[in-house]
């Protein structure tokens, strides 16, 4: 069994644990674990810049956001957690079976995807591609960031109480 296969298996198991664990806090931590394992894969595919972004933003910032939401919302009592766990187990019991069945089916089919897709932009250095060939993406990123900032400001703005 190669190392890549082990890492991909760890990624799938971490994603399943993230989805199926009963505690939202554990789910948030599992999400960070998925991002960290994904970063290992990205680094092994020789994409260090994307890996750094994935590790710093997706494994660092986004789980913090989820933990903040969990801490700001009202926690369940122990009895509610037990009741919800039973309901959740009922709903999610098919997921591991589906994942295993689809994985085995795709493995047995041994599909060979087409990898000679023509792409419009060509460049060896990611900085060259980002600043010269995908300049419009940067403009879009700035607009999206500004939209996000204003969206958060509007969402968290205290509303005037009437009367």
């Amino acid at each position, binding site marked *: 069994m190669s190392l890549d296969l082990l890492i991909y298996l760890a990624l799938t198991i971490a994603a399943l644990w993230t989805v199926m664990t009963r505690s939202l806090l554990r789910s948030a931590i599992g999400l960070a674990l998925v991002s960290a394992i994904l970063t290992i894969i990205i680094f092994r595919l020789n994409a260090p810049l994307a890996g750094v972004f994935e590790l710093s933003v997706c494994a660092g910032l986004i789980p913090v956001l989820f933990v903040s939401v969990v801490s700001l919302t009202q926690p369940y009592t122990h009895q509610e957690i037990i009741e919800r766990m039973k309901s959740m187990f009922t709903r999610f019991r098919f997921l591991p079976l589906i994942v295993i069945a689809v994985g085995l089916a795709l493995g047995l089919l041994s599909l060979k995807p087409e990898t000679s*897709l023509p792409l419009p932009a060509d460049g060896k250095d990611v900085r060259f591609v980002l600043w010269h060939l995908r300049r419009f993406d940067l403009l879009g990123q700035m607009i999206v960031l500004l939209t996000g900032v204003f969206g958060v400001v509007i969402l968290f703005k205290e509303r005037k109480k009437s009367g």
Partner: protein
Amino acid sequence: MVSAIFITLLFITGIYCIMASYNLVRVLIGVEILIKAVTLMIIVVGSACGRLALAQSLVITLIVVEVVVITVAVGVVLGIHTHNNSLDVRKVRRLKG
């Protein structure tokens, strides 16, 4: 190709989480898992095609959009919790429209 199989499995996990969850935070976690599958797919395809620089620039754009989407979605979820005192999607019945 091993990576294609695991990308599919990650995608199925995210879709199932979105469909089977009643908690809004868990739905967002499902969306995150979906985005992880897309990120991995872009990098794998870029690596297979020999256009890794382009794939990396697309992934950087994707991560920026992902962060903004999740931040705004978290704000919306908190607003829903303030108004309904619950994160259960079945109890969110006060939406207009």
